[in-house]
């Protein structure tokens, strides 16, 4: 692990302000919005987790089983 830059002290990229809406990126978000974002992301994850796994990925590991 290397010591990365302290991003809090850096100026935000200009493109973050191009739309002219919303708060600066370092502004503290309302708790309810933070929770909603987390909920939406977990729902997206859940949707993907429930998808059937592609055969090619399973076959890759199954082949390992037969070689062992």
């Amino acid at each position, binding site marked *: 692990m290397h010591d990365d830059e302290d991003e809090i002290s850096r100026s935000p990229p200009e493109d973050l302000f*191009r739309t002219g809406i919303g708060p600066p990126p370092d502004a503290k978000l309302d708790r309810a919005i933070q929770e*909603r974002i987390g909920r939406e992301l977990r729902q997206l*994850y859940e949707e993907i987790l429930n998808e059937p*796994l592609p055969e090619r990925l399973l076959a890759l590991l199954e082949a390992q089983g037969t070689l062992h």
Partner: protein
Amino acid sequence: LTLDPALRDLMLATIPSLRAFAVSLTGSSDRADDLVQETLMRAIANINRFESGTNLNAWLFTILRNLFHSEYRKRKHEVEDADGSYAVRLSTPPEQNDRLNFEDLKRALAQVPVDQREALLLVSAEGLSYEEAAHVCGVVVGTVKSRVNRARARLAQILALDHESEFGADPVVKAALQNPS
């Protein structure tokens, strides 16, 4: 080439999470599956470098993340909507309790800078601790926290969620509450 059956089963159990991370990171199921396949191939080929008893999940996520960054550097212009045009199309705030459309969410995620996006996904969706996410991303914990905060703010801005708290209440009611006389 051999793979311990217990390790193989652990890898198998991790595939859904690796896919979810990869799909959310790339916004494409096909690219995500390619990325997961490459991750598993790399892991199998380098299994002698995995230290038994350590966190296999974290190791696999680290491989996937590094592969994604290698690919990302080659096709950066395709990944992010740098001109913010999608944000303009989403300028109407969603209703407070409506679930977001998954495709909208994926497109919005694609606009979040990649280092912030991966930190947010690892912590908020995958459920890793800040320490684990820092290990996967190869940065210090404070950097992960900063990136997660920035990613949330950016996502709220793109999806116009920040308007909910700012403009959520009826303006007349707001004004009445501020001027009770």
